[in-house]
């Protein structure tokens, strides 16, 4: 089974819009949204949610006011600045490490299980879709991403799917690492800017560390042909195949507003570019 993850390093390069377009070309596949912090893929796939589960990860500390005598020991050991002068633990900043609970001489700190998000299994017009939502301020450790991928694998097995298109996370941290694990192809979407190239390099280093073959797509390449050239040269020097180049085109935005994937709403030149990218990574 082909598992293709779409990542970018830098946010906003068009990763999710391209993922949706590739999903629309799947014959028998599973769409997976691993970008759990502010996920967007569902806005184009219009999922019909069939299963919804809470995701519990870690714990949050809470002070029992009846037992607390304001000695302040918890505040002095908290490394995350989560305990106020008034002995209140801010759940947004609490990391759930438990140091305060261990340090409290009155046993006044309780560690309570934390619901940090939700994951979903849905049906879409292109097939099954596994996605999730991480609650605000939560640690994006990659655990929820791993859950989503596990569910996607199970679903793919059930449906005898031949491909998974995975929308990955921006950056180079744990969620990206979790998105990358076990995939056979990484598609890096970049833009012809110094930031785009800078960040693509960092994420390519990461993908190579996990020995995952990479290909690159340059989005909105005609906004700066010189920079686009620089990126092409970089790819050549690094022996990275260029899966495709997509021109800047207002029809991309209008199709997004209409809730359509590129293959449903964008111009002919865009659709052709997407088909070439599909051939390169999944053909």
């Amino acid at each position, binding site marked *: 089974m082909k598992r293709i993850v779409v990542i970018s390093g830098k946010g906003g*390069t068009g990763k999710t819009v391209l993922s949706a377009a590739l999903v629309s070309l799947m014959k028998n596949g599973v769409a997976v949204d691993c970008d759990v912090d*502010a996920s967007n893929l569902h806005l184009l796939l219009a999922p019909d949610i069939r299963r919804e589960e809470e995701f519990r990860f870690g714990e949050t500390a809470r002070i029992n006011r009846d037992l607390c005598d304001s000695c302040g020991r918890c505040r002095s050991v908290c490394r*995350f*600045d989560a305990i106020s002068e008034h002995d209140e633990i801010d759940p947004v900043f609490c990391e759930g490490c438990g140091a305060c609970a261990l340090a409290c001489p009155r046993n006044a700190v309780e560690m309570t299980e934390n619901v940090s998000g939700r994951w979903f299994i849905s049906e879409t017009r292109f097939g099954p879709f596994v996605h999730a939502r991480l609650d605000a301020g939560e640690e994006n450790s990659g655990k929820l991403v791993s859950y989503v991928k596990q569910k996607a694998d199970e679903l793919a097995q059930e449906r005898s799917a031949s491909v998974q298109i995975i929308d990955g996370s921006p950056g*180079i*941290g744990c969620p990206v690492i979790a998105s990358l694990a076990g995939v056979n192809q990484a598609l890096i979407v970049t833009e012809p800017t110094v930031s785009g190239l*800078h960040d693509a390099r960092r994420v390519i280093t990461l993908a190579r560390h996990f020995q995952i073959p990479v290909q690159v797509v340059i989005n909105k390449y005609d906004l700066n042909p010189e920079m686009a050239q620089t990126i092409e040269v970089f790819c050549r020097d690094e022996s990275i195949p260029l899966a495709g180049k997509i021109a800047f085109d207002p029809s991309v935005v209008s199709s*997004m*507003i209409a809730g359509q994937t590129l293959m449903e709403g964008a111009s002919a030149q865009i659709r052709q570019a997407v088909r070439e990218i599909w051939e390169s990574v999944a053909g």
Partner: protein
Amino acid sequence: MNKNIVVASGKGGTGKTTVAVNLAWAMKGQTRLLDCDVEEPNAHLFVKPDILHRQEVTVPVPSIDEQRCTQCGACARACRYHALAAVKGKVLTFPDLCHGCGACGIVCPSGAIREIPKVIGDVESGRRSTLEFVHGRSRVGNAITPPIIRAVKQHVSRDRINLLDAPPGTSCPFVTTLQHADFCILVTEPTPFGLHDLSLSVDVLRQVGVDFGVVINRADLGSDMVHRYCAQQQIDLFAEIPFDREIASACATGEILIEALPHYRQMFHDLIYKIIERTLA
């Protein structure tokens, strides 16, 4: 006067760094720019600062004093990150998994745990012209970014206006940047993705209790959905930056927008003044 103004966006790529850099540059003798997007710091590509000071960021990880260790295993049981294992009379440490919380040291009954620093990133500071600049960079493969963000924030100025370029998203790194901020500018784009992520950011800001306003970038490339949302939510729209191929071009090559296209200078001057006024109100 010192203020901490965070420039953030739920969605990546909306122009957060462009706005932060140009706001700082518009009043450069009175501002300090702190790039807190430590996984992918980009502000330096535009500011091109002379780096004057470099410092490693470390987290304290446990080191076991085998003479004092009684192999009770309490440290391994206390660690929520499985960075310690107590097996067959030995305690193993796994610094890559350690979050630096100190729980192991607290629980050890024999004082056998000492903390040693493990490098996870760097903070650099410097200047370009009269703009003061700080940024943090996480080492590739490092899992924990909040300590690096906190290290960057230690460099906030006491007498300048601090502009903090936040990491995208609404999870832990963004929230860490936002802590103790006086104001937050949310940069968005008038598309379904922009609106969706804007509303998530707004939820966090309301939860954390930080005052905020919105800047719409590429304002004519999309629909009026963000305007309608802001009106409905009674959120102040502070500025609208049009889609302009010249802006895209200038940013693509790492130029500071208001230097490359001086007719935009007024817009950023007005914006920073408006923000400062708001923080004084």
